[in-house]
């Protein structure tokens, strides 16, 4: 069981390799089944890892038995394992949806998908900043290829922007890592936290520059206001299962922000504690505003959902900027909720677009959808959830985040932005829904019915929302626990570097 923590990284990699080998690669059915079964096993393993972390507290695994801070370590705390569970849950839904036919529109869909899951899980589990960079690149190169899956002008155009931007981001990431390594002499996150707390005054400015450059990189991945222009085009042009998986990609940026600015530059970091908060709060609030305006202005449904992703990112980044345990707990719950519901909306947008003939997902009058009851019901459920209306998970998420703002100024800002944006989102969604389902013109429906597998995967993601409400008690407790663990930096350092700290004192 000690090696369980490596499973979320190794299993997708081995699955991807296995899918590319001849006996499986030549048969589409085998590829699909292997991919789906592996995703299901990954979900089970992730939940087992979560239980293990619950029982034993923070786990760390020295790869190759090279102890921290010299070797690369994997760290599983509650926060990262919850994110891994979320990814596995989402990936299973997206793979099932892709297996209904989308995967055969290009080659190597399943291996690339598995490689991307590997990168995402690795990014969550790593305890080393350079390793984080490596896993970012793994997930990015898989996402580049997945983005142009099935081809088309729009995808190529969006991919050029996406790739160039992310390569620039990687360059900045490396520069900041070099600055931090040059001054701190380590890239292990726990060790860096220790070194930052005892930093000589002359290195202060350099570390600050390095730390803030990291913020730029993560803000680019998370799509925060001045760096968000790539997101709507990229997400709306990607094919549906890919867009659904991309819903978790922006959250990786948020996760990295949370990790770096609460562990390395956290409350114990002396002068450098909270260096990013002054920048992140206004940027996050502005992202919420821009996303809400984007929802109102969108001409097609996929763009609208992409803008909903922006709203959720803005909300999360503002929560990260508050830098309290409460806000981190709210951010975790809201991440789970918003990722699942936006992914479901991306899949639903594809189902609706397939049934509306030429109008596709544009918000103009078009043909009647073939399954108005099924799709309409799913749309209403998703819309109510994402807007945050009472019986669904969005409401609890919003409640937690509104409660997390305790300072008067922050509370005023966050409440007004979040509540007004919710109103705009409701207006935008009701406009979109009434256009998609009620403004009918032309001949009767003639599209294809949704495949059972597609309906299953949308339901899989959507039903998570009622479950998040029913089990809201244990889940909020889990998020509070994760936040407490995240902010208990000294305990983390002691567990990870326990031996090496005592050894370091002797010479």
């Amino acid at each position, binding site marked *: 069981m000690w090696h369980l923590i490596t499973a979320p990284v190794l299993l997708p990699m081995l699955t991807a390799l296995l899918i590319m080998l001849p006996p499986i690669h030549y048969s589409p059915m085998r590829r699909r089944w292997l991919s789906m079964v592996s995703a299901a096993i990954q979900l089970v393993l992730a939940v087992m890892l979560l239980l293990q972390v619950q029982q034993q507290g923070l786990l760390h695994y020295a790869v190759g038995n090279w102890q921290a801070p010299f070797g690369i370590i994997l760290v599983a705390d509650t926060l990262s394992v919850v994110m891994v569970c979320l990814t596995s849950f989402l990936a299973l839904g997206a793979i099932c949806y892709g297996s209904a036919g989308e995967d055969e529109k290009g080659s190597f869909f399943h291996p690339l998908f598995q490689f991307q899951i590997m990168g995402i899980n690795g990014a969550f589990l790593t305890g080393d900043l350079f390793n984080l960079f*490596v896993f970012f690149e793994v997930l990015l190169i898989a996402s580049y290829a997945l983005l142009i899956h099935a081809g088309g*002008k729009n995808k*190529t155009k969006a991919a*050029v922007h996406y*790739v*160039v931007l992310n390569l*620039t981001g990687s360059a900045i990431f490396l520069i900041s890592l*070099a*600055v931090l*390594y040059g001054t701190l002499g380590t890239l292990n996150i726990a060790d860096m936290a220790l070194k930052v707390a005892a930093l000589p005054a002359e290195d202060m400015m350099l570390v600050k520059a390095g730390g803030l450059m990291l913020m730029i990189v993560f803000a680019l991945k998370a799509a925060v206001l001045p760096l968000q222009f790539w997101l709507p085009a990229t997400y709306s042009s990607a094919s549906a299962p890919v867009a659904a998986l991309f819903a978790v990609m922006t959250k990786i940026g948020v996760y990295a922000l949370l990790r770096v600015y609460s562990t390395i530059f956290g409350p114990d970091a002396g002068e450098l504690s909270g260096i990013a908060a002054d920048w992140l709060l206004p940027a996050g609030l502005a992202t919420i505003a821009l996303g809400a305006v984007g929802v109102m202005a969108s001409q097609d449904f996929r763009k609208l959902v992409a803008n909903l992703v922006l709203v959720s990112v803005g909300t999360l980044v503002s929560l990260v900027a508050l830098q309290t345990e409460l806000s981190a707990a709210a951010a975790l719950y809201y991440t789970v909720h918003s990722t699942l519901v936006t992914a479901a909306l991306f899949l639903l947008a594809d189902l609706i677009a397939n049934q509306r003939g030429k109008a596709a997902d544009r918000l103009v009058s078009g043909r009647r959808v073939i399954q108005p009851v099924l799709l309409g019901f799913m749309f209403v459920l998703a819309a109510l959830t994402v807007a945050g209306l009472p019986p669904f998970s969005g409401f609890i998420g919003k409640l937690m985040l509104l409660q997390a703002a305790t300072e008067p100024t922050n509370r005023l800002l966050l409440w007004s932005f979040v509540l007004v944006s919710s109103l705009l989102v409701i207006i935008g969604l009701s406009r979109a829904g009434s256009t998609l389902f009620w403004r009918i013109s032309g001949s009767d429906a003639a599209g294809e019915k949704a495949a059972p597998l597609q309906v299953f995967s949308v339901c899989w993601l959507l039903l998570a929302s009622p479950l998040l409400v029913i089990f809201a008690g244990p889940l909020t407790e889990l998020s509070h626990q994760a936040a407490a663990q995240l902010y208990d930096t000294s305990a983390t350092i002691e567990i990870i570097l326990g031996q090496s700290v005592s050894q370091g004192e002797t010479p």
Partner: protein
Amino acid sequence: METLFACCIGFLTACGVFLMLRGRTFPVVLGLTMLSYAVNLFIFSSGRLTLRGAAVLGTAEQYADPLPQALVLTAIVIGFAMTAFLVILAIRARADLGNDHVDGKLPDAANMKKESR
């Protein structure tokens, strides 16, 4: 040595940024390549510049930090793969979109004239 090294990195970065802001994909790819050279040199220097520093313990008085060398190797490999992918993507974009502009469409003729003046 430090000044020369720093100027070198600065010059490469400046060229890279300038080229990246151009409108066509080929200069952008070149710009990214230059930027990645600058970044690699910079990572290399983060272990401090020393002359005749051995990387193996117990063979010399002065040691070079081996970690930046390992980091730079990883960064070079990743950067190389990414650049290769970008080149292929740029060629495909040229084929799909009919031109090599990063936005997929050439700016209007009126703007083009202004630029050439």
